[in-house]
């Protein structure tokens, strides 16, 4: 009889536990990371009697969680990729939308600027066309600035998001370390299911932020490694990541790893997850875009200024600079021990690559690397002002003393737009006219003509001087009454930095006068050359004009974004299916719980019935003995 009671009680206890586990499952149906728990029942050890083994009731062997480490690892990897591409696609979409927005399109600003230059070339004396040019220059530079500022803003956001993510990583690492402690402490024979669920969930969250390597040790701790194998969590210990000033850019944050050997920069080796996407966005989308826009601005500035200097402005002076541009960035590493600095200028923009460069002082000789390909470039020159180091269209002048191993980061055009400004205040500054003109005297006996001259050296100080070419006989001429030069028909005469061609047969005494091209209100020769810059191949080794380079930038950003979007979509589907599979194994199905609830309720009632029968038996027995 006691055994009936014992069996019944053991069953009641077992089913109560089972029911409460069902309750726990129902309660956690919406808990992220919760794995369904089940109670494992075994029959108690039987008692041997003469007639054989008699059952002794039921007991709880364990409470297990439905967990599949393989599916968990799959969901973790898929989650990491999904989160990486989602972040990448989100940030890329901003650049994409910026370039798509007609109000920020550089293309329309360039079109209307060059349209105005065309209007100017058809009527160079019109003050309306000239003042329109000032307005268009202002508009153009501002448009470039606003696009670049928006891009720089995305960069700052990405950097801020990186710092924020570092904080989240540290926090999650701390929580995992804490859970490691709790789990190892409570690791008796039975697994602490809920703690394990929590830790698995945290690891999944962490791998959405950054790729981690997960290694479980025998004590029940989970150890995590990031980057190149840097330890993030080992047992109860964590090593933090931190944001610190970048070696090459004090305004920017770099991620350092606070390991046992002090802070080491780790930005370059962090991969995957949101943080990987943010670094990828910066280096693959944002910086190339800013460099390309910067290069377009540099090209425009260099070409317009150079051409404007070739002509006479409305005040009959040689044209000055129309636009200014930010110089190439050359930043010394904060780790440099020497005090030297470098000064970089762009000689030939079309050979400059869309990349950061790194100059290293290697035991007195300089080495230059392109960071996108990692290739070392052949440097010529010695680095002095008279003989600068040159490679890829850059020229580098080193000043001061450098120590062995000192490094400099060079960004030729990344920050150029910051200094992209309109320098003109009045349209008179635009040089429409060629600087010189030449005329045949009306008193000439012959009908020989002289062309208007081609300037070969605009810097010649005597270019604008008045010069008379006088023929002392049909094949000899003097210049300003001096000298005696032989005239060869068809050959240009070079005087004061310009070439003039006299055609026909000059007669003795013929005079040709060269003078500054003053008052030439409708001379548009230089204006046409300015307008021509629109279609001149200024970039990509002379193959692309500015409009084309912008169009190809749009195509590049578009295709990178498209790729990121496609990957994000594919990865989110993979992640969803991995999660579903994990859910299939570990999730709670309320219908199943409802069925279990009924099952265990009925078993509980049956067990209660066993006790009630035992009690009736007792009563019967007691009543019999009372007689």
């Amino acid at each position: 009889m006691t055994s009936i009671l014992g069996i019944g009680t053991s069953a009641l206890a077992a089913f109560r536990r089972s029911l409460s586990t069902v309750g726990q499952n129902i309660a956690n149906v919406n808990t992220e990371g919760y794995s369904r728990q089940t109670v494992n029942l075994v029959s108690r050890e039987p008692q041997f009697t003469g007639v054989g083994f008699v059952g002794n009731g039921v007991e709880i062997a364990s409470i297990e969680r439905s967990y599949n480490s393989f599916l968990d690892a799959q969901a973790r990897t898929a989650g990491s990729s999904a989160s990486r591409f989602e972040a990448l696609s989100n940030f890329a979409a901003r650049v994409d939308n910026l370039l798509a927005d007609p109000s920020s399109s550089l293309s329309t600003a360039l079109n209307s600027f060059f349209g105005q230059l065309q209007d100017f070339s058809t009527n160079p004396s019109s003050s309306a066309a000239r003042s329109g040019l000032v307005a268009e220059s202002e508009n153009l530079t501002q448009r470039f600035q606003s696009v670049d500022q928006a891009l720089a803003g995305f960069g700052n956001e990405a950097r801020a998001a990186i710092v924020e993510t570092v904080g989240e990583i540290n926090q999650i690492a701390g929580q995992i370390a804490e859970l490691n402690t709790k789990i190892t402490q409570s690791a008796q024979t039975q697994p602490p299911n809920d703690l394990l669920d929590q830790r698995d969930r945290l690891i999944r969250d962490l791998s959405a932020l950054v790729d981690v390597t997960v290694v479980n040790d025998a004590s029940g701790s989970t150890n995590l490694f990031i980057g190149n194998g840097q330890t993030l969590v080992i047992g109860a210990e964590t090593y933090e990541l931190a944001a610190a000033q970048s070696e090459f850019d004090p305004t920017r944050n770099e991620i350092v790893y606070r390991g046992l050997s002090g802070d080491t920069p780790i930005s370059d080796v962090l991969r995957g997850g949101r943080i990987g996407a943010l670094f990828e966005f910066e280096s693959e989308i944002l910086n190339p875009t800013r460099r390309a826009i910067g290069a377009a601005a540099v090209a425009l500035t260099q070409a317009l200024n150079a051409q404007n200097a070739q002509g006479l402005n409305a005040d009959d002076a040689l044209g000055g600079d129309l636009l200014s541009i930010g110089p190439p960035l050359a930043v010394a590493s904060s780790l440099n021990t020497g005090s030297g600095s470098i000064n970089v200028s762009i000689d030939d923009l079309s050979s400059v690559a869309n990349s950061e460069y790194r100059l290293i002082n290697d035991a007195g000789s300089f080495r230059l690397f392109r960071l996108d390909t990692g290739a070392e470039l052949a440097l010529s020159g010695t680095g002095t002002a008279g003989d600068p180091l040159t490679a890829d269209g850059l020229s580098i002048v080193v000043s001061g003393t450098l120590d062995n191993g000192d490094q400099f980061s060079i960004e030729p055009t990344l920050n150029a737009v910051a200094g992209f400004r309109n320098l003109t205040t009045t349209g008179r500054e635009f040089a429409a006219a060629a600087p010189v003109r030449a005329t045949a005297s009306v008193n000439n006996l012959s009908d020989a003509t002289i062309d208007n001259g081609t300037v070969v050296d605009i810097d010649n100080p005597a270019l604008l001087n008045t010069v008379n070419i006088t023929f002392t006989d049909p094949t000899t001429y003097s210049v300003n009454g001096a000298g005696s030069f032989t005239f060869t028909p068809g050959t240009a005469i070079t005087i004061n930095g310009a070439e003039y061609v006299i055609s026909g047969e000059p007669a003795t005494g013929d005079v040709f006068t060269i003078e500054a091209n003053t008052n030439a209100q409708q001379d548009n020769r230089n204006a046409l050359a300015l307008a021509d810059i629109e279609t001149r191949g200024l970039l990509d080794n002379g193959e692309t004009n500015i409009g084309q380079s912008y169009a190809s930038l749009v195509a590049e950003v578009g295709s990178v974004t498209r790729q990121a979007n496609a990957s994000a979509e594919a990865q989110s589907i993979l992640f969803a299916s991995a999660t579903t599979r994990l859910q299939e194994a570990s999730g709670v199905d309320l219908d199943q719980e409802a069925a279990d609830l009924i099952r265990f309720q009925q078993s509980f009632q049956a067990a209660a019935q066993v006790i009630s029968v035992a009690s009736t038996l007792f009563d019967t027995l007691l009543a019999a003995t009372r007689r």
Partner: protein
Amino acid sequence: MRVTDKAAFDQGVAGLQRLQASLNELQQQLATGRQILRPSDDPLGASRTLEIQDSISRLDQFERNNELATNRLRLKESSLATTTEYLQRARELALQAANATQTNETRGFIAAELRGLLDGILAVANTRDDGGQYLFGGFQTGQTPFTRTASGFQYNGDQGRREVQIGQSRRIVDAEPGDRIFGRLREGNGQITAAPAAANTGTGVITINNGSRVASYDYEAYTIEFVAPDTFEVRDDGGALVSTGPFSPDDNIEIGDLAFKIAGVPAAGDVFDVTPSAQTDVFTVLDNLASALEAGSPNGETTPQLQTATDAGLAGLDQALNTILGVRSELGVRLSVAETELDRSASTKLLLQEQLANLQDLDYTAAISALTQQTTALEAAQQSFVRIQGLSLFDLL
């Protein structure tokens, strides 16, 4: 397969979100009428669109330049047409003046009309465009191109020819120096002039008889002096004797390869000057002719000097007419080039606009049927989501 509640819910929601997103995209396409909303929709298409838009706006600009140049060329052409009429009238007058029946009085009338024509042509040469710029000053459009000075007429412009871009690689000249049109004429036959001295008393009239240009002539000046009515001496600039000979009205007087004929009867002491042609302009030609006619002759008869002057005037006017006709035919060629370019650019633009439409314009039929399809799908997904979420064993307990 176990279907857990969370998975079913998450999947249902994700499906709804995806459908909503693609509906939203379609709606944006329909609202803008554009197939490419952002570069990532079609990277190549987006950049091609930019390039085509660039090309179209450049073509628009060239068309605008073209119209401007065409208008300027037309204005010039009509100015030059007026000038041609004036010159033709002047030529008629010069022909009349050459008539031996003219008296000093009738010459005066002709001179007065010539002066009127001179002023007319000067006014045309100093025409300004609607922007106040002189049409015929080359690049020097801020100052009057032709002015009258004490010593004659002066060109104040330069040799500039303004070009206007009317196509990607096509420029036309829409302004040129006025002295090419009204000036740069040569006196005499273009190489030399021969004229009787003012003090001549004979009736000898000299004409150049060597036909075309003489290559060996080196711009020397000569005098042919009649020491007796039948003997002449040719002297050079420095007064050195070059040649001498008997005079016959039927024979050429030759100086090197130059040849002259003198008609009429020269008197002893008469001198004929041979000089290299100086540069002159249409105004000076008219002015000289008018002055000669105004001066007339002592007795009203046609003197050799008068005849030489009217001959020179006629020759000058012929040169001027030829020059202007040449310029006008150049203008005509340029106008037709401009028109051809305009046609060409219009057809290119049409082609580009077609390409642009293919690239960026939305196919409404396809988009609307897709919209209908997706709306139906979304409604079905929403309804089935609610139905399936409503199924639970607990409802039956």
